[in-house]
């Protein structure tokens, strides 16, 4: 008896690669929420005190504007970042700047995995070696990213839906919250608020992966409402969390809480479960893993767009090995912090300085070209 009936992949129908507009909501929202969501409260409170919730809103509005400009830049030709670069900067310079984005995505992915594995080591397993947890996560990332864009999007959707119960648990600390902590409103100066907003921005980053997957969305420009509402949802979420944090902790207390969201989970207690932050931390794996997946997918995509013949799979493996090595080498709170700071600064430069500049150049070039 011989078995020949099994089908190879090529014989199977290739799944439709385009995704419908509603998924943009999840892609934007899920890549924004990550490790930043666990500890942003202290950082912005350092700059703007109990008014720091305003910084959340200000930064959120900036993100909305940034998304608006992304659509403005891409929607006319339904192109992606690579095409945009090529059109505005020319072949050579465009390639170089595309590579910058690729490196940025990979290093952001590395930063996310390293800070998460550090969190696990600090809170859950002080004895766990970095390599074992990194290896487990990176293998998962490989499985997801090698499945293609659809799988990455699917993980984004589930990473929003499944850990959503964590948010509902934050209702419990409200019982003990003291909302007068928020008063008086408006004590921080405008400069302080802007400074806090800049710090806040780190927790919103990652959404510029949008520049890579925009052509893969059905409906093109009509999906802007989904992208905007995804970012809006992130903003509301962070806003609620920051209000609860500010009301629950006094300002001085808050300045000692590096991972304030975890400290809030600590309050949650059930008759059958205590120290809920463990569950919170483990569930957070879902929230951060989809970031890494999307970032790495975007970097593979850049490679494949620049050199269509290259093997995305080999590149992915190489990248993952690189991230793995980086995770092992980077040890010690200070080094990790410095690295993350560095990547974040870079992110702000790319998102809010380089990209607007690029759009401007593109805009003027188009204008000049039209007038002969």
């Amino acid at each position, binding site marked *: *008896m*011989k*078995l*020949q*009936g*099994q*089908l190879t992949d090529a*014989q*199977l*129908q290739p*799944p439709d690669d385009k*995704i*419908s507009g*509603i*998924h943009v909501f*999840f892609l934007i929202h899920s890549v924004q929420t990550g490790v930043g969501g666990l500890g942003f409260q202290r950082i912005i409170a350092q700059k703007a005190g109990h008014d720091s919730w305003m910084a959340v809103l200000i930064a959120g509005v900036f993100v909305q504007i940034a998304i608006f400009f992304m659509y403005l830049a891409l929607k006319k030709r339904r192109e992606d970042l690579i095409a945009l670069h090529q059109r505005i900067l020319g072949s050579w310079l465009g390639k170089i700047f595309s590579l910058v984005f690729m490196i940025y995505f990979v290093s952001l992915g590395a930063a996310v995995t390293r800070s998460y594995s550090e969190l*696990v080591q600090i809170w*859950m*397993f002080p004895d*766990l070696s970095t390599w*074992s*947890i990194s290896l*487990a*996560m990176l293998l*998962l990332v490989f*499985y*997801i990213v090698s*499945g293609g864009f*659809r*799988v990455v*999007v*699917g*993980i984004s*959707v*589930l990473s929003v*839906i*499944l850990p959503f119960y964590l948010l509902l648990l934050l209702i419990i600390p409200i019982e003990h919250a003291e909302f007068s902590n928020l008063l008086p409103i408006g004590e921080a100066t405008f400069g302080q608020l802007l400074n806090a907003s800049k710090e806040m921005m780190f927790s919103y980053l990652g959404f510029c992966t949008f520049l890579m997957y925009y052509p893969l969305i059905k409906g093109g420009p009509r999906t802007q409402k989904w992208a905007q509402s995804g970012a809006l949802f992130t903003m509301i979420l962070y806003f609620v969390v920051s209000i609860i944090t500010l009301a629950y902790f006094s300002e001085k207390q808050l300045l000692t809480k590096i991972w304030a969201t975890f400290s809030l989970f600590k309050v949650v*207690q059930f*008759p*059958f*479960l*205590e*120290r809920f932050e*463990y*569950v919170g*931390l*483990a*569930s957070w*794996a*879902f929230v951060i*893993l989809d970031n890494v997946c999307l970032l790495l997918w975007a970097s593979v995509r850049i490679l494949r767009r620049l050199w269509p013949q290259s093997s995305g799979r080999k590149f992915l493996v190489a990248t993952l090995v690189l991230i793995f090595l980086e995770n092992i080498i980077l040890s010690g709170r200070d080094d990790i912090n410095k690295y993350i700071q560095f990547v974040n600064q870079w992110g702000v430069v790319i998102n809010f300085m380089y990209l607007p500049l690029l759009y401007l150049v593109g805009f003027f070039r188009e204008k000049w070209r039209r007038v002969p």
Partner: protein
Amino acid sequence: MADHWQRVVEKESNSVDFVYSSFPYSYRPYSVSYYRSLINNDLLHAVILPALEGDNLRNDESVRMAIPIEKVQLIDDVNEAQSLLLKGYVMVLLEGDGKHDGILIPVPVVGGRSVTAPEVEFTVLGPKEAFVERLDTNLGLVRRRLPVSDLRVHRIEIGSLSKTQIAVLHIEGIANPENVKTVQDRVKKICYDDIIDSSFVAQMIKDQPNSVFPELLDTERPDRVAGVLGEGKVVILVDGASQALIGPSTFSEFFTASDDYFIPWQMATFFRFVRILSSVLSIIGSPLYVALLTYHYELLPQDLVGILIISRETVPFPPILEAIILEWAIELIREAGARLPTKVGQTIGIVGGIVIGTAAVQAGLTSNILLIIVAASALSTFTSPIYQMGNAVRLIRFPMMLAAQMWGILGIVLGVIFLCAHLIRMTSLGNPYLEPLFPLRISDFKDSYIRLPFSMQRRRPLELRTKDSQYMPKGDSSQGGSSE
């Protein structure tokens, strides 16, 4: 008799159940050959032989007309005759100088089981018919529920040894032709000599042959088949199998029972929720025990930890070993229960379950809390109405326990993420398996993880991309009450 016919008869005569007899003194001399085990002997003797003895059989055509049975055919081709002999035909070779060599008369024996109540997918309410092994009976069961000519049945024969008849069913004008074509193409491509059961076909036309999850839903209920045909799906019936295959299927359908449509929608939704939740608990139950007791004692409140510690006081194994031993024991009881004859089965089940369980706890080999968890999760695997899904759940628990041993609850979460990624990657006949969760289609939730009332089920699932998307023509409110 011509030489080539002589050879056929000689070759077949090697089987003891082959009968050959000639009647040289009739008005028109002839010989009859057939397989005794395959034909209806009463019919042969009462109808066919007397007809062949008539004295007005001047030519071949009149012989054919003399036999009062449909589909009698004149033959000249040896190979065709040979294969039809094996399908319950009687071959009559006519002597003389007629145009044709003989005739073939179909008199297959109609046997097999009669239609009984479903055993695997039993429901308290609703119809109590289940498929049997005969393809024609099964087709009849479906046709009776869908008396429309648009119900198309496409026959394919596969298997070089078994010559299994496969029927691919769909409703023209509703089902997406692409799905129908996919099924037909894949079934035709099956190249395996012996197809025993529909589960062979299910495994061979799977999109992901290496996945533990079933991709085509197998059911023994004709009412379920009729229901999904109306939805726009494709159904495969296999001769000799009492399970029909339904595709494309989604993950949520494996937690759908026929019962859900016979009871009010609130209850149906609740029961679906119970099924999915218990399957999830069944997967993470014992891994959670392993994780909590190996790494995270502090997660449990003091009172609960006390009980746990006391129950584990005398247990000499680490939690992972304890859990694996007990899970193994449960699998043992279940396997034994499935193999044992019905009459001893129950007794052994009780002996195995109660005696071994109690004794193990009293001897201090396992904690009784783990016993509760393991027994509850074993029970939970049976809540999936489709047996194959229960099997998948059964297997997943073991790697999950290992993950829990390595990374505690983080390991469980990573395992769940892996499962999610796997389910997202999966397709059934090229359609996404996790739909409507991903790709997210809100309107398809109406009959997947929840079930909304019939009045809200106006449209067929988007997933199937049916040609006719409406269940109910516009303005027809006969099913939704008079309020619309």
